[in-house]
């Protein structure tokens, strides 16, 4: 009897795992199946031409460029904050300090704050500072979104460092700052992983940039100009009643999915490299 039960539940569990894998394949498959036929070279090399939203010529280069500018800026800001902070809680503070656990705890909560709330807060902040919907506003808001993500993955890899490495450096008489610099080099693949994860999350998020980055058909040339983003571009094109524009939304979805696939796999590659170095 108990062996029968064992069998049945094993099958159910394998079934559950298969469903989850199947759904992933189904999602990516659907996006590619729908989008690939409309994906042309023009899509990724041209900005929207006249009558683009009626199905005429043009591409989504504006959105691709906007997304890249946005994420580069946001990444820069969040790196400046998260790298020193991770060094601080791991190397400067004692191993089980209350302060570092408070910081970790608040980061955990920040990690859970929905992107739409960041969007609303970013918008409120911009109104307060008198910035219009622009590249700058988008950068600030996306930086808020990806900062906790970077922090968490950086923190995780840093904790994996062998404990005797910092001790060895300290015993040679280095200050903690010098020690951090050396260890940072050791952590490089882990940092790359953290960056890739953060970029993946930031580049795909629409709710944060909806209020803050605006939308435009041109490639932004300064921080004060509005910037289009890939997720929003997909969203707006999908909302069009014209079939060709909708098809282009699917093609844009393929572009975004490919970007995410590349980021995700290279993140995994670098993190496995890091783990290999360790043992």
């Amino acid at each position, binding site marked *: 009897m*108990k062996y029968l*039960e*064992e069998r049945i*539940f094993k099958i*159910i*569990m394998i079934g*559950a*795992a298969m*469903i*989850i894998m199947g*759904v992933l394949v*189904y*999602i*990516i498959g*659907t*996006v590619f199946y729908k989008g690939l036929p409309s994906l042309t070279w023009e899509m990724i090399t041209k900005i929207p031409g006249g009558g683009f939203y009626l199905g005429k010529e043009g591409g989504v280069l504006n959105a691709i460029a906007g997304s890249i500018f946005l994420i580069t800026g946001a990444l820069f800001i969040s790196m400046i904050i998260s790298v*020193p*902070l991770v060094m*601080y809680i791991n190397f*400067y503070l004692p191993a089980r300090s209350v*302060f570092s656990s*408070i910081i970790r*705890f608040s980061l*955990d*909560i*920040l*990690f*859970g*704050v*929905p*992107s*739409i*709330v*960041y*969007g*609303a*807060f970013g918008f*409120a*902040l911009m109104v307060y500072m008198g910035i219009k919907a622009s590249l700058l506003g988008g950068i600030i808001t996306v930086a808020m979104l990806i900062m906790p993500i970077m922090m968490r993955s950086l923190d995780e890899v840093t904790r994996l460092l062998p404990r005797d490495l910092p001790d060895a450096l300290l015993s040679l008489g280095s*200050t*903690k*700052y*010098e020690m*951090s610099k050396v260890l940072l080099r050791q952590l490089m693949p882990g940092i790359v992983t953290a960056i890739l994860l953060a970029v*993946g*999350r930031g580049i795909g*998020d*629409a*709710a944060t940039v909806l*209020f803050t980055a605006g939308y435009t058909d041109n490639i932004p040339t300064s921080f004060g100009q509005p910037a289009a983003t890939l*997720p929003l571009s997909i*969203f707006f094109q*999908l909302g069009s009643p014209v079939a060709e524009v909708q098809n282009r939304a699917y093609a844009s*979805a393929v572009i*975004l*999915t490919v970007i*995410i696939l590349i*980021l*995700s796999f290279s*993140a995994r590659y670098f993190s496995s490299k890091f783990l290999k170095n360790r043992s």
Partner: protein
Amino acid sequence: MRKIRFVKDKTVRHFMLGIGVFTILFLLVIGFSLFFKALPIMKEKSLWVLLTSANWRPFKGDFGFLPYIISTVYVSLIAIIIALPLSILTSIFLNSYASRGIRRLFGPVVDLLSGIPPVIYGVWGTITIVPLISNKIAPGFVEFSTGYTVLAGGIVLAIMIIPLLISILVEVFRAIPKEITDASLSMGATRWQTVKKVILRKSFPGIIAATVLALSRAFGETMAVLMVCGNIAQIPHSFFDACYPLPALIANNYGEMLSMPGYESALMFAAFLLFIIVVLFNGLSRFTLNQIEKKYQFS
């Protein structure tokens, strides 16, 4: 020369401390600024009216959030009901049954599911789930449904929270000391009996914490839900009615919100509400999970 090194170290240390304090305060800053933005509407109407009235007419100054709150709750509950059993079964499978190879194969699957942007989920939902509901599922229950429904939102959300659930649950199950499961197995219990009588019972708090965390993620999800839920301000009566969750409300109306005086404040109130709930849920479940992790590390 020696002095400069120490001065450098000190400066950096203070700079880092500043960042640390800033991060902790940041949460408060977000909370307070949303609160102050929401204050005008809270002064005008009592909190009770805002939360329990179904009257939504921004042009007349009526802001009742009940339809949005109920929509959010329904969609999230459906998502949890679908996602939780799947995730628990899969995590147990990965933890106690699967070989290393399968476990390794599943890593990228979870990574990708959590990496796929909400917009893509939305696109997928409108291509597949919405027509499926409208053509196949709904006709069995109701006269007509557009497919843009509570159910569609729930299904799409379920898939979006599965990776979060699995990654936490795997950790929770792993935290159970091997001695306990070995003891059970050596008494002649089958694996499943061990899972049922030992692992699931032992990890109950962890499962609850993971569920709460996933629920709070579901509450805040915006873009995908916005694209498949139909966005009609009503209290949904069945799974096949359209609904309008809170995040979608905020996202959809940003353009108009400056033109009407009470409106901006009302939307900020929605954001504030979302923020408070998510912070509470997150705080509680993270605390529980940290506790579990600690027990595991030092035992």
